[in-house]
């Protein structure tokens, strides 16, 4: 008998005869969380993620490139990692070099350029698939075009978010997007720049991941 069989046999011998009904998760959310208007969701999202030290800039759908450039210029950052296979990445590659930004595409597998990713990549631009108002959370599904490390290694992470894609809760996002039908290799919830309070409960940002998180919030023009 293998360890697996022994563990399962012990559990089966000790298991209760019935598990009872499935817990009513949807019912709890229906009675304890309200579905807010788009404007209120946007406001709540922004409030929460700003509390977690992220920077949010409302931008027009056509005007985010200008804001992106300002964000980089104000920090004297001259290089940006983008996903050439994405619409926004391709646009950045086409437009940013003229503005003096060294725009690089993530085209090679990480093995061939890991040291450069860690030591020589000050910023990256990715999109967020959606967001969660309740907790001020970005949802990213990294893929072949826009890989995982873009939102982790560079000290500045700039995220494009369409305000139309903000859900009330994590539960709502999972249900409406049908996540259980298939998840990507890595799905991420990001709610601010990397941080730690491990030294005497003193909050410090930029522990291992990005030191700064900037959200370009499209469709929320004011």
């Amino acid at each position, binding site marked *: 008998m*293998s*360890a*697996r069989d*022994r*563990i*399962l046999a*012990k*559990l089966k011998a*000790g*298991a*209760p005869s*019935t*598990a009872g*009904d*499935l*817990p009513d*998760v949807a019912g*709890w*959310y229906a*009675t*304890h969380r309200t579905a807010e208007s788009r404007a209120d969701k946007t406001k709540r999202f922004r409030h929460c993620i700003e509390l*977690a030290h992220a920077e949010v800039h409302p931008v027009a759908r056509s005007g985010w490139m200008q804001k992106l450039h300002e964000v980089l210029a104000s920090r004297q950052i001259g290089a940006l990692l983008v996903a050439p296979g994405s619409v926004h990445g391709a646009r950045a590659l086409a437009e940013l070099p003229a503005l003096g930004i060294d725009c690089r595409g993530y*085209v090679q*597998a*990480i093995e061939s350029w890991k040291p450069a990713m*860690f030591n020589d990549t000050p910023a990256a631009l990715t999109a967020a698939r959606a967001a969660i108002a309740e*907790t*001020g*959370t970005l949802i990213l599904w990294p893929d*072949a075009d826009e*890989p*995982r*490390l873009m939102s*982790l290694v560079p000290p500045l992470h700039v995220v494009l978010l369409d305000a139309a894609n903000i859900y009330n*809760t*994590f*539960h709502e996002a*999972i249900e409406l997007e049908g996540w*259980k039908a298939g*998840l990507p*290799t*890595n*799905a*991420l*919830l*990001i*709610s601010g720049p*990397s*941080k*730690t*309070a*491990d*030294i*005497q*409960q*003193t909050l*410090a940002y930029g*522990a*291992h*991941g990005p030191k700064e998180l900037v959200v370009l919030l499209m469709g929320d023009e004011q």
Partner: protein
Amino acid sequence: MNAQPIHFKPTEGFRARSKAVVDNPFLRQSFRGAMDFLMSKRAAQFPDAEELESLRTLGERIRQYNLARLPELLVQLEANLTKNGIAVHWAETPDEANEIILGICKRHSAKLMVKGKSMVSEEIELNHAAEAAGIGALESDMGEYIVQLAGEKPSHIIMPAIHKTKEEIARLFADKVPGVDYTDNVDALIQIGRNVLRRKFLEADVGLSGVNFAVAETGTLCLVENEGNGRMCTTTPPVHVAITGIEKIVEKLEHVPPLLSLLTRSATGQNISTYFNMISGPRKPGEKDGPTEVHLVLLDNGRTQAYADEQLRKTLQCIRCGACMNHCPVYTRIGGHAYGTTYPGPIGKIISPHMLGLEATATMATASSLCGACGEVCPVKIPIPDLLVRLREESFSAPHANPAMRGQGAGYSSLVTAIWRGWAAVYRSPSLYRLATWLGSRFRWLVPSDQGPWTTVRVPLKPAPRRLRDMLKERG
């Protein structure tokens, strides 16, 4: 350098270790301050008592439902993880788990393993086993890194270095990290750790992590963290090994949001952690990063024993938030190291006996005033005080056949049992009680004036010269 392995008898020396902390005003201040901070942060996250209570009830229901179906969910999880390309391993003991993990390391000729925070890896003493096998095991959570650098163990399951002041950490870094000058600026200290560990993430051959929730229906491993080191460990090295206790499984993805909310709000008073990392497979063809191999090690280590008993099974509802220790008057005064077990505080007292046997942990459950704070704040409503009483019963009752726990009766003493039996008999019978109090008032002079610790600060306890009964009789 790693801490010495945990001793076989954590209860040995418990008194001395506790006293050392109680006598140290700096440590007491560290823990008091940290616990007050965490308690107020948690309280601020739950302003609505009804919401908290109903969410706790839902959390309890979710955990109990999933535990009730644990054997079939483990099989479903294994099937879906395998389908997703994640290799599943099973270990009954810490030794087996270490062997599996180090076997994977050896197959890849690994020299360095970077570790995200994993209490289960502490439970199996993985760092020691790795060191013995010539494989470097480096902790990358800032708190764990500090604790490892000091050759110590975590004193709290969420905040491992909570017992250290920033000055101590500053001195530690200046002494142990090459090329670092003394600074007690917290931002500067974190940047030192970041720079050291980033170089290690680059080099590492294997990344190790724990698991907060494993989702059976999708074959997904979920990790909660703030720093990003967990994502580094699970993304950067070519191989990722996750380890978890067999109890951390939920059937449905929809079970995750309520548990996540309870976890982060109860643990650190955050409405959500910075990162929630959901892993459903290794790198797919065409993807440019992520590990090419992902493994999951499922560990028993006494959990099946707790599972077999309806009451003790509730121990396995735990989602490891640490709120019970933050609110525990005993933990706050003696800190995490005094317990001598991987998991300290109230949860440590109820889970460790299953891992180590009652022979080694017989008196752990007595280090409690049964004030009930732990049960009141538990996000999944584990009746910790009831379990502590149950464990006292298991430890101190006379050994009997087919015990529910390994080491049942380990604390049994025929003398103590006889004394309590006598006590019970006196209090059950009015005539015996009359006789006993009469004897007490006549022979009060026999009571010693030195009554151990009691008389160091108080007057000795003596029966009154005249019984209440006699005084009432006089008044008519």
